C-alpha cells in the first residue's frame, strides 16, 4: 500500500514588513521518516504556485510515535527580497550565500616576522 506524504499549512500569516508569507507546515508521513527539506520545498512550491527558490523551510520536529512532523516555512515575494531578508545560514543551505571561513587561531611567528605582524592576526590560508 502506497502511503503518500501530505503537507498541510496552519497559522498562515502575511508579513508585509519582511515581504514574505510565513506559516506552520504539518507533514503527514505514516510509516516513513521525515521527508528531506528539498522535497518539502518543492511540495510547498506546488501548493503555492511559485518556484522553490523563494521558499525556505526549517525547524522540523517529529511528533512522538512518528507519522507527523511540524515545521516552519517562509515564502518570499521575490528572490531579491529573499536574499535581503532571509537569515544567512538558511541562504547558505540553499547555496545562495557563502560564508568566509576565517580562522580564529593566531599563527605563531618568531624573530623578525614578529614585528611585521601588526594589530591584526594573520589569516590562515
Amino acid at each position, binding site marked *: 500500500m502506497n502511503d503518500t506524504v501530505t503537507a498541510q499549512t496552519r*497559522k498562515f500569516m502575511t508579513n508585509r514588513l519582511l515581504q514574505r508569507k*510565513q506559516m*506552520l507546515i504539518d507533514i503527514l508521513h505514516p510509516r516513513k521518516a521525515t521527508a528531506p527539506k528539498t522535497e518539502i520545498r518543492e511540495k510547498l512550491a506546488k501548493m503555492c504556485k511559485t518556484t522553490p527558490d523563494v521558499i525556505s523551510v526549517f*525547524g522540523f*520536529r517529529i511528533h512522538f510515535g512518528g507519522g507527523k512532523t511540524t515545521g*516552519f516555512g517562509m515564502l518570499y515575494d521575490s528572490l531579491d527580497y529573499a536574499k535581503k531578508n532571509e537569515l544567512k545560514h538558511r541562504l547558505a543551505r540553499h547555496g545562495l550565500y557563502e560564508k568566509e571561513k576565517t580562522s580564529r587561531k593566531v599563527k605563531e611567528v618568531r624573530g623578525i616576522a614578529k614585528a611585521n605582524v601588526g594589530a591584526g592576526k594573520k589569516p590562515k590560508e
Partner: protein
Amino acid sequence: MMRQVILKHALLESEPSSAAEDLCDRGKSCKYERSPTCKTFFSCPQTGRSEECRGVIGAVSQRHTVHIKREVLESDLPSAVTLLKNLQEQVMAITAQVQSLTQKVQAGAYPTEKGLSFLEVKDQLLLMYLMDLTHLILDKASGGSLQGHDGVLRLVEIRTVLEKLRPLDQKLKYQIDKLVKTAVTGSLSENDPLRFKPHPSNMMSKLSSEDEEEDEVEDGQSEASGKKSVKGVSKKYVPPRLVPVHYDETEAEREKKRLERAKRRALSSSVIRELKEQYSDAPEEIRDARHPHVTHQSQEDQHRINYEESMMVRLSVSKREKGRRKRADVMSSQLHSLTHFSDISALTGGTSHLDEDQNPIKKRKKIPKKGRKKKGFRRRR
C-alpha cells in the same frame, strides 16, 4: 332591473349570441346564461345559491362574471362613497399635523445635540417597524410582489438596530424595573440593596469634622478682617479614620478552609467518580474531553509549543528540562496509577497518610534563578 342589466351587457358584447341556447339550467326563471364547463362559481342572485358555471372561460363566462361584479358594485357603491369621504378628511387632518410638525422642527423646538434618549429611540424604531410591516402586508395582500421592495430593506435596517439595542436593554433592565416599581408603589421595597450602599460621610470621625467647622468659621472672620489664615489655603493632611475591621481568621478557620479544599479535591477523584457511575441511573458517558489530570509538566509543554509556533523559532531544551520531562513521562507510563489512589481521607474523616511509594506533597519555595536567558519565553510566576 335584471333585464336592464342584461341588455347593458349585450351592448357591451362585441359578438352577438342567441339568448335561448345559453340560458342556464334553471330555465326561464333564471336569466343567467349558461356557458359550458367554465367551472367558476357564482352566486345566482335570482335563486341565491352558489352554482357552478358550466362553461369555458370565454366571452360568455366573462359576461357571467361581469354580471356578478356589477351586482356587487352596485351594493357597495354607497359605502365606498362614505369611505372615500372619510379618507379625504383624514388625509387633510394628517397633512395639517405634518405641516405643523415640520414647522416646529425647523424652528428648533426639538434639540438633538445630545442625542435622543434610549427609550425614545426604541419607541420610534418600533413604530417605524410596524408601519413598514403594515405597508408590506398591504402590498402583498393586493397582489404585488415584494421583490426588491424598498420596505424590506428598511425593515432589515430597523431590525438590525433593534437587535443591537437589545444588550443595552438588558443592562438597563434592572434600573428601569426598579424605577417603575418605585413609581407604582410609591416607596422603595425593604429588600432594596441600595439601602446598604456605603455612606462615606459616616466614616469621618466626629472630632475631625468639628475641627473643620472651627477652621471654616475662623477663615470667615479673618477674611472679613483682611487677614488670610494659612490653614485656609493648605490644610494639613489628616488621613481618614476608617472604621477598622477585626481580622478574624483564626487557626481553626484556616484548618476548616483547608479541609474544604481537600474534600472538594477528593470528591473529584477517580474512586468517588467510579462509585458515582456505578450507582447512578444516568447512562454512561464516554467523553473525549481534556484529561482531568493535567500536570504542571503538560501545561509547560503546551506553553512551549504555543511560543514556538507563534514566534517561528525552535527553543533548546536544557538538561534540567529534559530531566523533568523524563520524570513526568516515567510517572505517567508506569502502572503507578493502578495501585495508588488519590487521597480521600478528607471525606472519610481520617488523617492523611501516604504510601511509601508516593511522593510527599512539597511546598514550592521561591528561589530566584540566576542567568535566565530566555526572557521572552519564561513565564513569570
